[in-house]
């Protein structure tokens, strides 16, 4: 049996206050990632010691993890659509898919980080290492939070505590997940494909 959804509070504009608050949070996240990406770009090509991006970045592997994250965004909207129409069987499948997709992305990142460290790129090695690990690590931390959030929703769905009346809860989780995806779209281009 599905539990009752918490009462929705609407602003004077008729907007869901939780959704509006979350969009404001995403706006603040734009500034956080804007500052980290700026720092990376400002120090790009100024390392006095290697390894440099062109020596170490693995574009094929990162392309696969980028595709994985893009697909997880598709699964997220399909999960939301399933919750909205009350199809909880498919909602559970898609929510678990998003969590697995995020975990695969984190696995790729762990592989990348560990191989970089083996090749001598650490946070202390040079400016590239410092700014790269801070930027992609912060993004990875966001993906980790997203995976835990999706697993929480999945468990609630398994317990019968998630239903169509909780569609806004899933939509807000989706906004977070898609934001993490669009940040990666920017990072993939600026850090991986346009490296110096």
């Amino acid at each position, binding site marked *: 049996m599905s539990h009752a959804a918490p009462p929705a509070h609407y602003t004077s504009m008729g907007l869901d206050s939780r*959704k509006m608050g979350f969009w404001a949070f995403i706006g603040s996240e734009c500034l956080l990632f*804007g500052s980290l990406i700026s720092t990376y*770009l400002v120090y790009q090509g100024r390392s006095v010691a290697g390894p440099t991006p062109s020596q170490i970045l693995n574009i094929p592997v990162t392309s696969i993890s980028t*595709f994985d994250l893009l697909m997880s965004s598709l699964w*997220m909207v399909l999960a939301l659509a399933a919750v909205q129409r009350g199809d909880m069987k498919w909602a559970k499948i898609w929510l678990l898919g998003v969590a697995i997709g995020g975990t695969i992305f984190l696995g790729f990142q762990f592989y990348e980080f560990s191989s970089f460290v083996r090749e001598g790129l650490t946070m202390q090695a040079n400016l590239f290492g410092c700014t790269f690990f801070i930027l992609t690590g912060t993004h990875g931390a966001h993906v980790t939070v997203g995976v835990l959030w999706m697993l929480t929703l999945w468990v609630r769905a398994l317990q019968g505590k998630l239903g169509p009346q909780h569609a806004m809860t899933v939509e807000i989780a*989706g906004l977070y997940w898609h934001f993490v995806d669009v940040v990666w779209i*920017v990072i993939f281009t600026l850090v991986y494909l346009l490296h110096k």
Partner: protein
Amino acid sequence: MPDSHAVDQPHPVEHPHPTAGTYIRVAIILTVLTVLEVGVFYVPAFHPVLVPVLLTLSAIKFAIVVMFYMHLKMDNKFFTLLFGGPLLLAGAVMLGLMFLFGVLTLGR
């Protein structure tokens, strides 16, 4: 005495979301754009225009996800303002820092 709160209570404004078919078409477009990005990166003929091409493809992907998956195309424009304002500010700060540190220059 009438309940003024009941009279003033705003009506929720909900906009219909895209269908699953639209979401899948968007995913196909995003996949094609990602393949193009990686393809352009590996084709030497594109290297003189690599920066504008990749930035354009990335901006298109960004806009598509935000418009369709985050529903800004259908939702209330105030959400676009809440997101677009800080996004523009972040972009301005980024450009400012890049000019300040000499990554970007005007003229010579």
